[in-house]
């Protein structure tokens, strides 16, 4: 049955591809072409998931659960729910995009590049679908290695430094994640996510110990997102990394993990720490936006824009409202999509003009009208213009969390305005005004076939996710609704906010409909 093996296939087709890449000759474009084929096959395979996903069913689907190691009891347990469904799809979708954008950017040592690129795909997909904590941790840590190597080998001049920073930043807190996982195992004798969830929910743990364990999880994830004071690596990495890696380095892995484990395993503790996380999220949101305003390097600007956007997702998660949570997941996907599109276009600009410095640009629109159009479309999607995906996500997060924390959310709204400022300003400085010497002296051609092929799917998807959001939301909501943190909230507190939630709860897709209606 394909349903039983699909997740294994999606995860390990890239690995198999990597092994083949290692054996292919370094001739012409054989290696990139083959990698493109592998990523496309993976993507097509992953389309099987939404096609056969049962939205009405709770719990995990497409499960595989086989014994792996007898003692300690480790199982090869994979499965997805509404939460991970679209994140897997996002990862497989960005696979071919990453190959296409590296097509010309990576000319030397292609074998190494594509080998680690494919390994990275496996690791990222593995994180989203592992239901055994050991397996999960394996993929989580594995995802660091190809990333760090690629940044070191193929980044800009200071790549090795950025790689080291990235690795140390993310590896150190993982040690505490491992302590927490081992502690859970020592207490329960299982690494199974579902079993742990019910064991923790049924009590029997010392509250203080659980608190430390949840912190171990949270810190590791918060660094990876990154959440505000832990973002030190982000700007360096996005600035230095090869574009294909900068696209996927931040956001989804950490946010997904916070969702799955902090909200899934430790709902009480997550609730208790929510005020702090919300404050950090809003600070990060504003801080990122303000710092972005001051940048002249495009990639640094995008890095801080990403920080700002990701803080938005964190805000949505820790408000514990169905709408906000839906929005957070939606916004995670958006960020993956629009952030990548922006980085891809920056890389195309760089291929033509050889600079990331905005001040050296100007009037590019006259020379590259096609690129300018797509850039502006992406900008608008990122700043949350209705009809585009960003609007849906931001609207859901803000409207979902406003009733819970009005003052913080009001502050966050300022961030949205700031995002318009830095994004439009960047577009204006690069594409409009008088052509700068750099631009005037070169006669580049507008987007070629490969570049069209890279960008259009992303741009179309942004529009589709803007107008037809219920299609995605229904899956996400089926995943969000099963979290203990959410279902509890409707019953425990009886004030205005949860009443509003309670109304929403029986008909989950209402929020989505409302937003879609608003968008139309």
């Amino acid at each position, binding site marked *: 049955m394909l349903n039983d093996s699909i997740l294994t296939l999606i995860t390990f087709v890239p690995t198999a591809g990597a092994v083949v890449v290692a054996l292919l000759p370094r001739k012409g474009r054989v290696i990139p072409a083959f990698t493109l084929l592998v990523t496309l096959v993976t993507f097509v395979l992953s389309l099987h998931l939404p096609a056969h996903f049962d939205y009405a069913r709770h719990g995990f689907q497409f499960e595989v659960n086989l014994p792996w190691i007898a003692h300690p009891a480790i199982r090869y347990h994979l499965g997805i729910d509404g939460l991970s469904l679209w994140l897997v799809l996002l990862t497989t979708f960005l696979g071919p995009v990453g190959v296409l954008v590296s097509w010309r950017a990576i000319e030397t040592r292609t074998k190494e590049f594509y080998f680690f690129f494919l390994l990275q795909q496996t690791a990222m997909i593995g994180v989203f679908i592992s239901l055994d904590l050991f397996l999960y941790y*394996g993929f989580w840590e594995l995802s660091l290695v190809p990333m*760090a*190597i690629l940044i070191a080998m193929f980044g800009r001049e200071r790549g090795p430094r950025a790689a080291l920073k990235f690795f140390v930043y993310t590896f150190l807190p993982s040690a505490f994640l491992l302590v927490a996982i081992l*502690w859970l195992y020592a207490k329960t004798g299982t690494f199974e996510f579902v079993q742990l969830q019910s064991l923790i929910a049924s009590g029997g743990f010392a509250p203080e110990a659980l608190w430390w364990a949840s912190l171990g999880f949270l810190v590791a994830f918060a660094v990876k997102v990154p959440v505000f004071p832990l973002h030190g690596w982000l700007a360096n990495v996005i600035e230095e990394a090869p574009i294909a890696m900068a696209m996927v380095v931040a956001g989804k892995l950490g946010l997904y993990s916070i969702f799955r484990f902090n909200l899934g395993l430790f709902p009480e503790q997550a609730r208790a720490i929510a005020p702090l996380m919300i404050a950090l999220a809003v600070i990060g949101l504003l801080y990122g936006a303000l710092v972005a305003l001051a940048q002249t390097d495009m990639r640094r600007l995008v890095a801080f824009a990403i920080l700002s956007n990701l803080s938005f997702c964190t805000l949505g998660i820790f408000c514990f409202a169905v709408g906000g949570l839906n929005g957070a997941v939606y916004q995670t996907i958006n960020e993956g999509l629009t952030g990548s599109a922006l980085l891809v276009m920056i890389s195309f600009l760089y291929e033509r003009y050889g600079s990331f410095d905005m001040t050296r640009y100007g009037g590019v629109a006259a020379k590259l009208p096609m690129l300018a159009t797509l850039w502006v479309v992406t900008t608008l999607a990122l700043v949350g213009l209705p009809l585009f995906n960003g609007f849906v996500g931001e609207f859901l997060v803000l409207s979902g969390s406003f009733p819970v924390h009005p003052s913080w959310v009001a502050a966050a709204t300022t961030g949205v305005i700031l995002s318009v400022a830095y994004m439009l300003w960047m577009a204006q400085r690069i594409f409009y005004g008088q052509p700068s010497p750099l631009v005037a002296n070169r006669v580049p051609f507008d987007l070629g076939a490969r570049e069209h092929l890279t960008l259009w799917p992303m741009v179309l998807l942004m529009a589709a996710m803007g107008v037809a959001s219920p299609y995605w939301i229904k899956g996400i909501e089926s995943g969000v609704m099963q979290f203990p943190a959410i279902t509890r909230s409707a019953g425990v507190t009886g004030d205005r906010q949860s009443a509003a939630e309670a109304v929403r709860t029986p008909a989950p897709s209402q929020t989505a409909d409302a937003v879609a209606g608003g968008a139309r």
Partner: protein
Amino acid sequence: MNQTASALRILPEIILTIAGIAVMLVDAMLGKASSRKPLGWLAVLGALAALAASLWQYQLPAGTAYFGVVQTDAFSVFFHVLIAGIVLASLLITLDAVTDTTEGLGELFALILFGAVGMMLMTSAVELLLVFIALEISSISTYIMAGYRRKTAKSPESALKYFLLGSFATAFFLYGIALVFGATGTTRIDDIAAVLAKSVGAGQAPALLFVGLAMIFIGLGFKVSAAPFHVWTPDVYEGAPSPVVALMSTAPKVAAFAVLLRIVYGAFPLLHAHWVPVLWWLAVLSMTIGNLGALRQRNVKRLLAYSSIAHAGYLLVAFTALSADGIAAASFYAVSYAAMNVGIFAVISHAGGYDDRLTLIEDYRGLAYRSPLLGGAMAFFLISLIGIPFTGGFFGKFYVFAAALHSGLIWLTIIGLANSGIAAFYYLRVATAVYSRPAESSPVHTVPRPSLALLFALFLTAVTTLWLGIVPGNVLARAQTAAQTYPSVNAAAAASPVAQQ
């Protein structure tokens, strides 16, 4: 027990001895000008035969031989196989690194084989005096090998240092045995446990015993290079030829760990309340001093020396767990440590050669550009040493700390894992150098083409490392069976809870 069966119990040792003697005899018969390399292949054959014999020993029923001084059980056979594997890989690495003009080549191969006899005997000896003799056999051959590059300044210094400190340590060990004999009236490990069961049961353990045990710890602590008995390690590793370091950073340590396991769990399980805190501190000190020391190194071999001190610390963590899982974890960790450490020294000894052309981290810049195979292998072993999942290094560490946490050693686990975070720093410095573009001004170090022997050794170590990370089940099961050799552990642990730190 009849005599044939007795010989079978030390079959790998016998094979290695015969091979060593054969190497020396053929060496004497060969002309002055002729190549000594075929002797290496002869030694490889001997190691292969010993490996096969060790694996075959799994079929023997557990039991003792030669008046009960040698015991083959799941535990000793496990370590026999491991040591035979290490010796095989080290011989291949040596074959690759040496040239026809290398001095005393025939003796070098013979010394490796004779040393291996001692190491193997250490793991199967159940009589402390035999343990001592085996320890001396293994030590003397490693002292000589450490000084094998006679023409350099570093190598004789390293050998002398190693010899002086090492003989002190063995003296401590011997004195410890004497005191234990004074306290219990026996030097047989199982008899000691039996005597203790009576006297401790009666509520008295002579002070002599504790002094003796402490002396034994000092001796073995030196052999496994646990802090604070570690100071010799960096100097010796730096001075000794790299292929020799591949051997002496793994096999003698593994054997000493096996001895330590047998002594603490076989002879003194009842005194665990006294020795667990000692080992707890040894573990913490080794991990911390090893990792912090490695951070400051610029010389790759010194760096790996400190890293090996840290790894000894991780291994000691498993000792303190005081459970069958702990013993199994220690055994498993020994295998994965051996695989990755021999592997990385295979790369170093090929890239740097017998006479250490590459010493500093900067010298390794761009190795991956000059030779993708060697660079990739080096990065892979470094990744395993860091402890990235799906490598043996990770699973070993995981299992060790799982066992420790299971016994409630939460602080030790946190210290250990924080340490492994620090370790990532210095391993990555080497890895980054390997994958950075070489500076324009730096001299070009050409890397010779890997020989068949090296490819063989790399394959053996890399596959083992990967195998232990992805499908560790088989080795793990064997380690767990080996741990069952000490049935008293669980009983002792159950009787009184582990001393919480």
